[in-house]
């Protein structure tokens, strides 16, 4: 594996500042993303983890500028090379974002057009947007298929999505994502739907491309093991907010937020593929009427009155002065989370 370690923070390619996304529903506004700030630089891999429904996918779609209807960005800024794109006219913003960013989805079967040959789907951007001739676009598609490790690309070119295995399909999706020559890739649980053995291969392909092409990568995953191996920095999300962020190793070994800690404890079985995080007792809050203060309080064993005294959710603050490790737990200085279970998990990972 390539080394995740990274020293001085380069200027971010893509940065979200205090991003808010709301979804109007019959029973009220669902506040899916409530002030998320994150950034990714060239060649950098950052992870986004959190329970199901905490807003990871919606955050990614907001970064891409393609939110599902009827969700809308209701606040914050989205900076591409330091320039805010949210102020741009829709067409220009769309252009700017899709030129710079590509996305890989969890379910490759639904992410591919079922009635179009996979090769044509890869060749579409070279042909329609990069102005290549039919033959050139075909050659480019074959080349991309080769790069993502698809054997016999000439034959696979003519296949339809449902004729390929899950691993092959996800490689096709990666090839499509690469076809726009992006600078950032957003990967939404790209391996969750795959067999364990295939998972590692597909991740390796993504990581190889990241290093070779200096791509920024935002990797969403349920799987802390995956994230800790690939990403140099991690954002932990809960109920639409980032509750802890920092370099992978310190964040995982010396977690400063009870939610992250609970996440780490609930990873006893590295082979289980589904819903590892569900073992934290209780339910995340409904994001229509968000409770005051720390949203994790009802499930948190360390919760005290101070946690919900301020109606606003707690802001991220540095764990130590000047450090990049931040947490949104108001009691982080009073509590000690360095538990044996966490150390054991990390030790296992390192081994």
């Amino acid at each position, binding site marked *: 594996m390539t080394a995740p370690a990274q020293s001085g923070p380069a200027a971010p390619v893509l940065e979200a500042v205090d991003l808010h996304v709301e979804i109007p529903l*019959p*029973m009220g506004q*669902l506040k899916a993303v409530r002030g998320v700030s994150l950034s990714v630089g060239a060649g950098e891999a950052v992870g986004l983890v959190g329970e199901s*429904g905490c807003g990871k*996918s919606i955050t990614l779609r907001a970064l891409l500028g393609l939110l599902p209807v009827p969700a809308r960005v209701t606040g914050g800024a989205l900076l591409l090379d330091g320039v805010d794109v949210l102020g741009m006219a829709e067409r220009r913003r769309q252009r700017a974002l899709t030129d710079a960013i590509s996305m890989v989805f969890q*379910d490759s079967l*639904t992410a591919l057009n079922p009635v179009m040959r996979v090769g044509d789907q890869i060749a579409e951007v070279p042909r329609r947007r990069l102005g290549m001739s039919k033959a050139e676009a075909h050659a480019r598609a074959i080349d991309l298929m080769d790069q993502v490790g698809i054997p016999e690309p000439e034959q696979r070119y003519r296949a339809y999505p449902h004729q390929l295995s899950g691993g092959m399909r996800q490689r096709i999706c990666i090839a499509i994502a690469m076809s726009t020559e992006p600078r950032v890739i957003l990967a939404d649980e790209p391996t969750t739907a795959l067999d364990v053995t295939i998972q590692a291969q597909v991740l390796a392909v993504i990581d190889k491309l990241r290093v070779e092409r200096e791509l920024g990568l935002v990797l969403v995953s349920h799987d802390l093991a995956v994230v800790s191996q690939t990403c140099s920095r991690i954002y932990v999300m809960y109920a639409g907010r980032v509750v802890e962020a920092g370099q992978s190793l310190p964040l995982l070994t010396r977690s400063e937020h009870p939610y992250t800690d609970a996440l780490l404890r609930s990873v006893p079985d590295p082979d289980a593929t589904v819903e590892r995080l569900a073992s934290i007792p209780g*339910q*995340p809050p*409904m994001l229509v009427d968000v409770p005051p203060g720390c949203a994790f309080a009802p499930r948190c064993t360390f919760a005290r009155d101070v946690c919900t005294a301020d109606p606003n959710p707690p802001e991220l603050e540095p764990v130590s002065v000047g450090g990049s490790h931040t947490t949104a737990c108001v009691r982080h200085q009073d509590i000690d989370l360095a538990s044996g279970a966490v150390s054991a998990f990390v030790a296992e990972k390192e081994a």
Partner: protein
Amino acid sequence: MTTLPAPLPTFDASTIRKRSGERNITLYAGLTLFALIVLAAVFAPLLTSADPLQQNLLQARLAPGSPGHLLGTDDLGRDVLSRILYGARVDLRVGVLAVVTPLVIGSILGLLCGWWGRWFDTIVMRLVDIVVAFPFYVLVIALVFALGQGTKSIYIAISAVGWVAYCRIVRGQVLVAKEQEYALAARASGLPTWRILLRHLLPNVILQAIVYAMSDIVLSILAIVTLSYLGLGVAPPSPEWGSMIAEGQNSLLTQWYLATIPGLCVVVVGLALALIADGLVNQFNKR
């Protein structure tokens, strides 16, 4: 709706009931409109004093808005409004009644096909294939032709063709429903089959069929109107919308309204029933 991530916020039942009450304007608009039409047909004698059959050549070809004849008179001097109202009685009655038999027969067959399957299902589905191979109108026309003109033949013909749709709908629903937990539980508890079918499955699968029945009423009204237009339906001189259109077509240039008004009536009935059907779908989706 395949990719909605869990967990969706759980709905509070009380707010839903409140909101669905506010929102199902479609259903109430449809029901109101249909009720008005039915009332107008039922109370036709109170709404107009004119006899729909009374000819009066001195008062023929009056334009709509003439004194005493709100919608004018036709070539023979008959009052158009009263012919429309009395015509509604015929078309609505036949339209609604013609749906009842297919609904009952089709649902029962569909229930049995879905539940039993095997040879019974095979035979019935082959029959369905054959019936749907005929264009609806053509088979109905041919049957009415063979059985002889009149409303009784229309009932028989529409029933002979119409059951197919209900059979397919209910069968499909049963195939899904019988694998669901409540049905499995009922089966496991050793209840007699008829009880499982009638008490547990039917209420769950019939909704779809009833929604379809709403648009089916429109379909059968269209069939009667078409048959009458072709001279196979209700025998003249009884007032009926389809034959009124046929008669009106002869004086289209001089009296455009004679053919126009009855057609509009069919459209309005269709609108009312379409609203009801859509409203029912909304209602069930909310549950």
